[in-house]
């Protein structure tokens, strides 16, 4: 900010323009721990999205009798592989496995040869059985592979958290924006509503509703989002209250922009800092909420792979250390990565550091 740069644009080539968003991204990248956490988290998430390719009891590709099958997509009946029954093939069956050992036949299995719901009937020990060559992290009390369940559970948790965060952010930004922009009576009514709504006992409502309705992810999503937007809307409201009286908003009004255009183009982009900063923390809060509800048995329906349900199993089978330890490790890693990302994001968006 120097006086002598007052002269019109000089002929010297300019460095490329940097938007505030890009500057923040640069600062984020400079934050090593946070940046690598983002990469690792992204990698894990993408891998878990392809969980069917990693943990499945059906082979990805199989060749039998000169014919190529893709059992992952369409499981042929046993008769296709020389069996006697018209039922879908169970690839853990020793008979089927022997069929594929014959010359000319082969099957390409995923690294973990269990789906989260498949039960290992051929385990040498009673369930829960410890880590072995076939079940790397052991089995749970129903004989399902812990590694597969962790993988699918991680995917479910992250997807659920993403959905919950997205809905919460949407509702929170909308409520905060309207309150902050219009102020006055709208704000007053909104704030009182939030106070009343916020004092509702969330957990009791969840228990009541899980008794009334079929438990399911959608119900959980709706119920948790009904309460999840309030913290955020306060921040957005404060930002809108501050920004709406700044000169650039006045200038936009004088220009004749509509309320909606002013909110969307002028105030919203300048009010998103708290929203973005809180994203990772909201994600980890959502994961924890789902885990806690599952642990209490109020969450996802039985049979769904979930970290909370695994934790509950670990509690019930204390001697099966592989269940609790594995789940614990996955949870800690997830939450830690999210927290590191959140820290880096907070630093990157710190307005005091923008000056430098």
């Amino acid at each position: 900010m120097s006086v002598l740069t007052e002269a019109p644009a000089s002929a010297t080539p300019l460095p490329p323009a940097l938007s505030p968003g890009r500057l923040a991204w640069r600062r984020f990248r400079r934050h090593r721990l946070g940046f690598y956490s983002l990469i690792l988290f992204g990698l894990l998430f993408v891998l878990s999205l392809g969980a069917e390719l990693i943990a499945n009891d059906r082979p990805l590709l199989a060749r039998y009798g000169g014919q190529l099958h893709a059992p992952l997509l369409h499981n042929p009946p046993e008769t296709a592989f020389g069996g006697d029954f018209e039922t879908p093939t169970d690839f853990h069956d020793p008979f089927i496995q022997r069929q594929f050992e014959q010359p000319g036949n082969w099957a390409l299995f995923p690294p973990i040869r269990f789906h989260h719901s498949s039960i290992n009937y051929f385990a040498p020990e009673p369930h829960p059985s410890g880590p072995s060559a076939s079940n790397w992290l052991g089995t749970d009390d129903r004989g399902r592979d812990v590694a597969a369940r962790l993988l699918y559970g991680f995917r479910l948790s992250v997807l659920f958290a993403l959905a919950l965060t997205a809905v919460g952010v949407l509702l929170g930004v909308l409520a905060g924006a309207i309150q902050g922009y219009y102020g006055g009576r709208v704000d007053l009514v909104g704030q009182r509503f939030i106070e009343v709504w916020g004092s509702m006992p969330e957990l009791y409502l969840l228990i009541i509703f899980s008794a009334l309705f079929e438990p399911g992810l959608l119900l959980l999503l709706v119920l948790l989002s009904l309460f999840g937007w309030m913290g955020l809307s306060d921040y957005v409201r404060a930002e809108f209250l501050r920004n709406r009286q700044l000169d650039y908003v006045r200038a936009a009004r004088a220009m004749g922009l509509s309320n909606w255009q002013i909110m969307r183009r002028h105030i919203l982009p300048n009010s998103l800092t708290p929203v973005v900063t809180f994203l990772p923390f909201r994600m980890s809060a959502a994961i924890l909420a789902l885990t806690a509800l599952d642990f209490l048995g109020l969450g996802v329906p039985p049979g769904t792979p979930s970290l909370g349900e695994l934790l509950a199993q670990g509690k019930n089978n204390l001697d099966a250390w592989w269940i609790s330890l594995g789940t614990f490790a996955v949870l800690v890693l997830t939450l830690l990565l999210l927290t590191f990302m959140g820290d880096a994001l907070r630093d990157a968006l710190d307005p005091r550091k923008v000056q430098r």
Partner: protein
Amino acid sequence: MSAPLLQVRGLRVAFAGLEVVHGIDFELAAGERLALVGESGSGKTVSALSLLRLLPEAEVGGSALLQGRDLLRLSERELRGVRGDEVACIFQEPMTALNPLYTVGNQIGEILTLKKGLSARQAEARIVELLAATGMPEPERRARAYPHQLSGGQRQRAMIAMALASEPRLLIADEPTTALDASLRTQMLELLGTLQQRLGMALLLITHDLHLVRQFADRVLVLERGHLVEQGPVAQVFEQAQHPYTRKLLGSRPQRTFGPQPPPEAPPVLRARQLAVAYEVPRPGLAGWFKRGRFEAVRGVEFELPPGRTLGVVGESGSGKSTLALAALGLLRHQGELQIMGEAWGESGMGPARANTPRLRRLRRQVQVVFQDPFSSLSPRMNIEQIVGEGLLVHEPHLSVPQRRARVLQALREVGLLPESGPQAELLRWLQRYPHEFSGGQRQRIAIARALIVQPRLLVLDEPTSALDVTVQQQVLELLLRLQREHNLSYLLITHDLDVIWALAHQVLVLQGGAVVEQGSAEQVLQLPQHPYTQSLVQACAPLCPRTEP
């Protein structure tokens, strides 16, 4: 002259490896008034504050001997003994420099008990004494007041009392009067002067205002971009400035470049009849729960602004001049008549839940605005093309992207931000820049371009230059004059600075407490003020600004 109180040698200050003060030397004798002058970015504040190591992120080099002790080598602990005890500071913004959660007396008393070891009772008496010495009315009562209960001038007095509590040998005053109104400015300087003489302390005054220096200081240092370019006794520097930069600073006071002009025979662009603006304010006490009070910010204002002319609105803070500006922009509900090109704003467009009718949009196009603060008037998340081109999106939505871009480039050229010609790619890269990459003066030009692009008839200028350095201020004023000539624009100029009025306005309207106290041509009002309030305004400024006809 005995050994100097403060001896600074080779002072260098750097932030994150970037040096902003490049080795300056100066001395300050006991009881001397030294002024450190420069524009923003010259490093004047940084050099003064780094003497006390008050900038935690700065790397400071060189030496600063205060009575033989090097302030830059002291430990943090020893330095705390110096700060506020031997050396005290007054800052520019008294609202933020005082803690809003403690009473004024409490904050002064803290220094007395900590630094002077007084008991609570002794301190109490001394607080009142100190406040009385700064000319604070009713010092006993004010000592128990919180900062927000005081006016700007009273807060500044409280700040001074706080600084003087420890009887410092050196007082650093960082732009002590910039946030104050003109008439308070002189009072405050006189107060500082008498206190300085009575206590025999040295005073280091940091300011961008050379004319303040002439009134006040013994010696002056001129800083340019971290270099000390000139120093000497005030008279010598003002009479025979050696360095071109000093001469530029001295010569950059706004000048009037046109004589009296008769109003043109054309219908007025803006016309006000019995204009009044009132706010609802909460009443004190329980009554406020049920009934709201009314505060009349502006009442009974009447004027006519012909095309191609400037109406200057003068008044101190709180006089209602900014309210008048917002009303003219159609952003405030008002009573009475306010017509743009013969068409009234009417009731429908006001308030936060405005109807955005085609009629209002057409009207809004006629009136645009340039605000004071070039940092808050541009959205930091939009680039220049988006900021300047937005008006076209609203008012000429039929334009294609290249057409709009051509108009943006034309507007930016017109305000002198872009060269007349240049490689296309280079120009486009300018359009992609964000406001934070521009200086204050450049931002103000962008704001003017944003207003001009929709081809308005009337521009409301709300303190358009008061946040800018003097040399930049001069350039912006010249730009405004040129644009007025070229486009036959009318300006509604809101300012507290009579210099700016003198340079731009044809007619003047003086507001006090929301009412017009004097109105007439600029020559008439500024040279022969009739109303006592106008006289005091002109007088507060008179020693600084001898008005000459062009």
